[in-house]
């Protein structure tokens, strides 16, 4: 046997990028812990995670964003599938989707800057949901990139507090991941 054979490729040597994973899971105590524990134990890094009940009260929907190459993320979805409480997993990164998140940003205001803040929020489809003497809360809903831009613009006011929900996504068109769940 010659030593000239090329080295065997290792699994997952592609470029890392952000992936969006949707999982439909049983709505039971401890399921979030199972998912989080699995991701930690298998060395997958969750960038954001949003969880809520679905149209059916016995299932929940999780939206995870993970950074990794194709093979790495495929391994994550396969491992998720092995959890008994996980009913359906889909990597929707390359699908036609609506992806939104909500952010609340508390900024400093003065009587002088207040009108400027209100118009800036409106211009970016946000709104001011709380307005006090020296602080205001701006709510913005949109794609993560849009939220990033508004946050940048608000920095000049001085951000006191910032919270983001993480992305939630839904496929465009008539398809439904919930209807695909076998029961």
């Amino acid at each position, binding site marked *: 046997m010659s030593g000239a054979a090329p*080295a*065997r490729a290792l699994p997952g040597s592609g470029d890392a990028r952000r992936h969006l994973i949707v999982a439909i899971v049983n709505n039971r105590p401890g399921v979030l812990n199972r998912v989080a524990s699995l991701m930690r134990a298998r060395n997958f890094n969750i960038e954001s995670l949003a969880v809520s009940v679905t149209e059916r009260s016995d299932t929940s929907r999780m939206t995870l964003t993970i950074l990794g190459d194709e093979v790495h993320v495929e391994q994550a979805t396969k491992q998720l599938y092995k959890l008994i409480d996980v009913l359906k997993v889909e990597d929707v990164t390359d699908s036609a989707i609506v992806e939104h998140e909500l952010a609340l940003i508390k900024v400093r205001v003065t009587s002088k800057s207040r009108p400027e803040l209100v118009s800036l929020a409106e211009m970016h489809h946000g709104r001011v949901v709380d307005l006090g003497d020296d602080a205001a809360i701006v709510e913005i809903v949109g794609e993560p990139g849009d939220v990033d831009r508004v946050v940048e613009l608000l920095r000049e006011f001085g951000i006191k507090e910032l919270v983001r929900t993480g992305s939630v996504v839904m496929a465009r068109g008539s398809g439904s991941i919930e209807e695909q769940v076998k029961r």
Partner: protein
Amino acid sequence: MTQTGHVPGAGTSAALATERARKEMLRDARIERRGGPRPRIGADALCEALLLQGSNIIWGYPGGVILPLYDVLVDHPGLRHILVRHEQAAAHAADGFARASGKVGVCLGTSGPGATNLVTGIGTSMLDSVPVVAITGNVPGVLLGKDAFQEIDITGITLPMTKHNYLIRSADEIPHAIAEAFHIARSGRPGPVHVDITKDALMGETTAPHPTQAEVEAGLPGYRPKLDGHARQIKVLADAIAASKRPVILAGHGILISQAERELLELARKAQIPVAWTLLGIGVIDESDPLAYGYMGMHGWKHVNRAIQSADLLIGIGMRYDDRVTGNVRTFAPSATIVHVDIDPAEIGKNVVADIPIVGDAKHVLAALIPLTPSVAPAARADYFAELATWRTASESSAWHGSGGWRDGVLSADFVVERIAEGSQHDANLTADVGQNQMWVARYGGFKRANSHLSSGGLGTMGFALPAAMGAAVAVPEKTSWAIAGDGGFQMTLQELATIVQERIPVKIALMDNKKLGMIRQWQEIVYGGNYHSEQLAGPDYLKLCDAYSLPAWKVSKPEEVDAAVAAALAVDGPALIWFEIAERQNVYPMMPAGKGLSDLIDKWGDDGEDVTEGSSGPRVDPTDPNAPSGATK
């Protein structure tokens, strides 16, 4: 001062419930037996559920919160509870029971330390896909999270190392949870399932019925193991076999689990493919079969690894291409198309890139593959098999096939293993511990029968041999069960000598005593440049120890004494031990140093014979020499 004293949140319903539960913990909880039928409680439902699953052996150890179960065991005479001396042994015994019989093993412990002691055994079963149901008690439900006596978040601990786990807080949930636990443990890729049951759930009255298998499966929409491989992929594999000149089958544990040994042999014969096996795949084929080529991997046979490195088609079935099998993946089987058949989709593409991936049960996939596979006349592969035979002869006749030590009057471990296997007509269950002894058993055990080799492969748990052999002996009483352990692993769980004597479990123990942690010494010699530390291991006088336990025992120091001792131990109606004083410095060869490839096997180190020559103490590599090799290959 009110009457509620120091109770936090006094007066609230939560505080009252907590108080009641605390009293309950200490109350005399005996079931009233006088006159008439007594109510059915959660503990009864648990016993019924175990019996319904065909499980009549429980390996366990009692404790505070699990006592309600022990209180009703007398009413379920079909269940045999075997009292171990440490919960870790209960978990290993359940594991050994499952490996030897193919049935689900059951172990039991109380809350807190009882539960944490089970953890090593549960992890062992997880890494090796062994079906075990581990049951623990826990404090009453309202006390959960309050750090009550012997309370620990055990479901939080077992979560990442079980296939699934449950925290049961009501008696009504018990029948369904146990049925589901058994189904999950034994189906698909098997594994351990842990069921934690609160004391009030064990004691609560219940009329909950036991579910049917159909009800259990219907209740698990997120769990549908895929058994049949993709038809088109199977055809692709059949075509690849037809085109292959140098195919090798890599047979793993999955073949034993799905009982596909017959199909494996049929495929191998029909297409004339040599079969190599992983550590847990030992027993997939009779090792004396002409198509049985050998044990692969880090301490596998040189000829087998050579065949893998020169193969054009590797057909991995029910194995996971782990690091002990492949070595460096970059240089693994450079010319081969890699086929990976496994029931667990997550295994495929995890460690190596599979060119032909097939998700499915080994038996189903093989059954579908065989009719599509062309018959190959032995003559068509004559050159290939002739080359394989040459390699085999070379590696088996090497002085490093074992050590040759018995010729010099020194007791060599491989010789001992060979004689034990021979003396037991190659029909016994051989349970290995972990370390050098494990590799000697794997290499020299001469296995002919499925499920006759038990070894902690994935987790590599020292102390496994004796308790797991106990499980095997109870599971398959018609076969002899040997525990082959080094003096390191044996001293980790030797408290179970009391169990085998008390319960008359006829385990035959081969203690391979080199007064060392042999594999540690071997690594320190070869990989750490002779910088020895903590490898010397003092032990007791094992004859006196066995005498103290009333266990028949023999001491063997010379090759010519081996056969007689084996025969004597086998003649004992019950457990027995042979203390083999083996060569102190024998290495397991060949060896693939970690990070190296299958072509980088070391097959000796230092001068010939030095490994087994007593008195050649001192490092072979001068530790003060700055040029001393570390991890060097020959």
